[in-house]
């Protein structure tokens, strides 16, 4: 540490190089720890559970052409029966939508039908009695729908059914005292009759992946009804190892049943998830790559500048060696010098990082950065700096004392 004063004195002579290295470390820290913070927030988004058992699940969306609305219901039922009988299929159901599909149908939930403000906004899924078992949703209290409760409903003439299964998050929101089961609520703001909670499920996500910005990501109402409309969404649970086979056989069986249809999507749930979170995953990868390249560029810069300094100061190093400094002294001189610059850079970088984060928070609604990233980034940069400086410092240490007298 007694070296600090002479190092600082020497740095004053190299003001430009010192400032540049410090500035580079500061900027790298500011960008890197914000990048890490973005990676983390994207990972959190992608890790949110849907509430489904996502493996061995196939989704098919089919649109029919030129069908008499009166016949639609029986055609859809025939589709489902065919799917359930297919080899390799464990169960199948029709649902208005499903988590991450994106076709959201949110409605306000009220206990008093005439209240102006809703108590909560909630996703509605219209399902049958096979939904819970097909999708692998866990019922924590109450019961599933009975087959005789499922009602076919015209999309232009919707009356909300008498029974509903809701998620625990919605139950806790609407009935904070925990007494949701058996209670009634109203859907929308012009429903003439109430709906009763017959069951509560542990968790199910809304259909739109950004529903969290409207505060209904975990609020779901399952209703025992099936819409009579030309496009239908089927969810198929296959037996283990049969997913690929059923992905082939299910659309073929449906075409054979009725070819006047268009598939708007045949994808495994895994693919649905990958597509929805593609940009989140890509952003995380990009940020990771940028952080690594930045660290490498900073290391290259430190290496280049230190090499230059060592070259410039060979004579002074020779003098010090001639006056009795050991090789270790010279090594530690350059390492300490780099550490001092690094610490200055990190101090400035912390300020820049927080400033950048505040700006990103207001401009792009990004999350607040945890201080841990600044800490991790600082340590990483200081270590990278020390490693980059090792080579030039080692070369400096090997400068012979003779160099001091050679050019006089």
């Amino acid at each position, binding site marked *: 540490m007694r070296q600090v004063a002479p190092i600082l004195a020497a740095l004053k002579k190299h003001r430009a190089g010192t400032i*540049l290295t410090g500035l*580079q470390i500061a*900027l790298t820290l500011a960008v890197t720890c914000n990048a890490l913070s973005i990676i983390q927030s994207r990972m959190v988004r992608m890790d949110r559970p849907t509430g489904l058992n996502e493996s061995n699940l196939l989704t098919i969306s089919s649109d029919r*052409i030129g069908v008499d609305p009166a016949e639609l219901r029986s055609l859809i039922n025939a589709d489902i029966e065919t799917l359930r009988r297919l080899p390799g299929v464990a169960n199948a159901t029709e649902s208005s939508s499903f988590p991450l599909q994106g076709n959201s149908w949110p409605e306000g939930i009220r206990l008093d039908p005439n209240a102006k403000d809703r108590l909560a906004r909630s996703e509605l899924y219209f399902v049958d009695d096979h939904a819970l078992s097909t999708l692998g949703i866990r019922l924590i209290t109450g019961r599933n729908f009975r087959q005789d409760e499922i009602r076919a409903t015209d999309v232009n003439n919707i009356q909300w059914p008498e029974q509903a299964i809701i998620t625990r998050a919605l139950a806790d929101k609407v009935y904070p005292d925990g007494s949701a089961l058996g209670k009634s609520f109203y859907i929308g703001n012009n429903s003439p009759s109430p709906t009763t909670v017959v069951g509560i499920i542990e968790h199910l996500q809304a259909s739109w992946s950004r529903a969290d910005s409207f505060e209904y990501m975990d609020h779901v109402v399952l209703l025992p009804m099936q819409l009579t409309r030309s496009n239908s969404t089927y969810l198929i649970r296959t037996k283990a190892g049969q997913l690929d086979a059923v992905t082939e056989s299910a659309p073929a069986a449906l075409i054979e049943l009725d070819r006047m249809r268009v598939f708007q999507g045949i994808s495994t749930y895994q693919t649905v998830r990958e597509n929805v979170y593609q940009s989140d995953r890509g952003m995380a990868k*990009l940020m990771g790559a940028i952080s690594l390249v930045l660290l490498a560029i900073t290391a290259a810069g430190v290496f280049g500048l230190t090499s230059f300094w060592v070259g*410039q100061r060979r004579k002074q190093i020779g003098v010090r060696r001639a006056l009795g400094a050991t090789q270790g002294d010279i090594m530690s001189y350059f390492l300490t010098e780099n550490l001092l610059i690094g610490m200055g850079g990190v101090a400035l970088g912390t300020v820049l990082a927080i400033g950048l984060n505040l700006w990103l928070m207001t401009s792009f609604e990004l999350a607040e950065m945890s201080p841990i990233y600044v800490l991790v980034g600082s340590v990483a940069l200081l270590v990278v700096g020390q490693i980059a400086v090792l080579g030039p410092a080692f070369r400096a240490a090997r400068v012979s004392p003779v160099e001091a007298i050679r050019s006089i």
Partner: protein
Amino acid sequence: MFGYYFQLGLRSLKSRPVLTALMIMSIAIGVATSVTTYGVFRATGGNPIPQKSSQLFVPQIDNWGPDENVERGGEPPRALSYTDTVALMRDQRAKRQTALYPITALIVPAEPTVLPFRVKSYAAYANTFPMFDIPFLYGGGWSADEDESLTAVTVISRSLNETLFKGADSVGQQIDIAGRSYRISGVMDDWDPQPVFYDAENTRGFGMPAQLFIPFTHAIDLQVPTSGNRSCYKTPDPGWDAWLQSECAWVSYWVELPDPTSVAAYRDYLRSYSAQQQQLGRFNWPPNTRLHNLTEWLDYLKVVPPESKISALIGLGFLLICLVNTIGLLLAKFLQRASEIGVRRALGASRSAIFQQFLVEAGTVGLAGGLLALPLTWVGTLSTDLVFTPQIARLAELNTSLVVLTLVVAVFSTIMAALYPIWCAAQVQPAWQLKTN
């Protein structure tokens, strides 16, 4: 002298290959990253129809009232209700106007072996085609009379014409859309404006181009529902007629206003229409209308994805760090040759000659960085689908302007970065250098 300096520069670059390589790589990576991300940003933030954008306007009318607009900060709904669409269309106050909404159209090919398929389709008015400068390969749009008479007529895209008619002139032919026969009045040439301004509200700005249009009036008559957003503050009563009479906002409305006078007149018209609705008791609040032109409208809907802005910013920050790095390395490189500068100065070279020599050398470094950045930018544009959805990733491509931009940014930014090191080099005192060595 330029040739001589250039040779000196090359020689100097070769003499310290590691330092030179670090510098060139640093510039290349910084430039490639920033140009790639800028390329995506430019594509997403671009003007989809520059020749017309200042004349195309989107009116908004508040049919919900301040209580229901709280979540939008008092802004009116982003689409029109059917009631207002009909009223504005009847009044015909703009040079041209059109209303459109996305529909699901299923095409049933004539050959029974081919399965039916779905294309991206819109119900629109005849004015859509001249208003949006839609180019035609064969035929043209349908007429305003056909709007009036609810005719089953259609305009299809070039690619749909390829699929159905193998590219032949199909004007006058019939096609089967969801079990009904439509006469083709025209085949569009390639038309793929990005962002998809005409339906930015539903596509969030990006998507595949429209493949098929049918008349709005005909679609309403057939009760074809919208496949886009239905924004309602109150659940509409059952039935199609109740849906049309509801205050749900679901129609995109466009007007063409060629000059500031007509814009001002249309603003007044929207206000007086709203005031009239207030007098009639339909609106319980004072007029709250908007009239955005196309570019304002895209800003208003925030169609530029946050990913594209953030990555463009990060690309810029990246370039900045690489340049700081380059300043340091150039400083090291130039000052290493202090003795050489001393000799040249002692032999009579002026400061400005030294300045020129190092400027040429820096320019060479920048050019080398730019040339290395080209393949990196190419790889970058190929990898944009890692970060962006396919609809946006397909917009990024290495075109001539991006190539030029890469080289210009590389050379210019390197010279900017080199100014301080060059100044330092020009300040070298010849006597001092000669003495110490």
